[in-house]
């Protein structure tokens, strides 16, 4: 992108501020629906940062795949499993959170230290700007052809796997006995696989 330097700096600061605040909101907000929408904002700011880094193709892919598909999928999952019951309180939660804050800050310090002290080979070769799109296409169909094809197989496997995992068992015949299955039973609520160890009463029917 050919922007003025000050404009780039302002864009970078705004986008990274929105990114980090949104990420904190994703992690910290009590309502998971707000978290999902903030995740969409985080992914959009990430696409803006990609645009700042001369990567318009990846920015478009980010918006299409992440915001358009993954975030919508997460919202659907929230809609399907939305159970408004408070989590069972457990002891030592505050201590655990503080400890993990310490661990994460240590990790952050380590990463920042590495990023700041490593002698990067700067400046690198000159950027090709918008010609990166054709360069990515060349990479995909020459030296990264095998990973490209394997990625398509991976997507197919993930699609089939997701369908197999998430579907209800709608079978015309019982597998074991061979008798016609009672289809009316399938839409009823299944009993939990194991009795939950909380105080949740098992006799609360909820429409599924």
């Amino acid at each position, binding site marked *: 992108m050919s922007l003025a330097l000050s404009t780039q*700096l302002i864009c*970078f600061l705004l986008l*990274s501020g929105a*990114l*980090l605040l949104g*990420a*904190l909101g*994703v*992690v910290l907000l009590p309502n*998971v629906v707000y*978290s999902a929408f903030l*995740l969409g904002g*985080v*992914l959009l700011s*990430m696409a803006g*940062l990609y645009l700042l*880094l*001369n*990567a318009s*193709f*990846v920015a478009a*892919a980010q918006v299409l*795949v*992440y915001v358009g598909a*993954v975030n919508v999928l*997460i919202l659907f999952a*929230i809609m399907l*499993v939305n*159970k408004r019951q408070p989590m*069972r309180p457990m002891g030592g939660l505050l201590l655990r959170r503080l400890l*993990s804050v310490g*661990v*994460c800050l240590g990790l*952050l310090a380590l*990463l*920042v230290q590495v*990023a*700041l002290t490593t002698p990067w080979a*700067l400046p690198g070769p*000159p*950027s090709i700007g918008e010609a*990166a799109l054709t*360069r*990515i296409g060349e*990479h995909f169909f020459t030296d*990264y052809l095998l*990973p490209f094809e394997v*990625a398509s197989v*991976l997507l197919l496997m*993930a699609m089939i*796997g*997701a*369908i197999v995992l*998430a579907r209800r068992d709608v079978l015309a015949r019982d597998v074991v006995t061979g008798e016609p299955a009672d289809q009316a039973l399938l839409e009823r609520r*299944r009993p*939990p*696989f*194991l009795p939950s160890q*909380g105080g*949740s009463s098992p006799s609360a029917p909820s429409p599924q």
Partner: protein
Amino acid sequence: MTITDIPLQAYLVVAAMLFCIGVWGLINSRNAVRVLMSIELMLNAVNLNMMAFSSYLDGSQVRGQVFAVFIITVAAAEAAVGLAILLSLYRNRDTVDMEQFNLLRW
């Protein structure tokens, strides 16, 4: 156009902060959907690193962008399978509380 104003380290530090927020959320979330969202945050942080290196250190052969596209692909597959597992888990255990998915705990 050469990028000279924003240092590479600024991008790396932002990515490191995003990654650490993701790790914290992964450890501390009790809602399983939020755990998946934290994983997405961490993957995005890695992607930002890839793009920064690709733009600053590998400006002529933008291999980092190729890797970022692969990471986006794998992340989409991971989200689909993860949410399917989550739905199946919710049907069996009737909760999304991570603390109650303790079947394999000793």
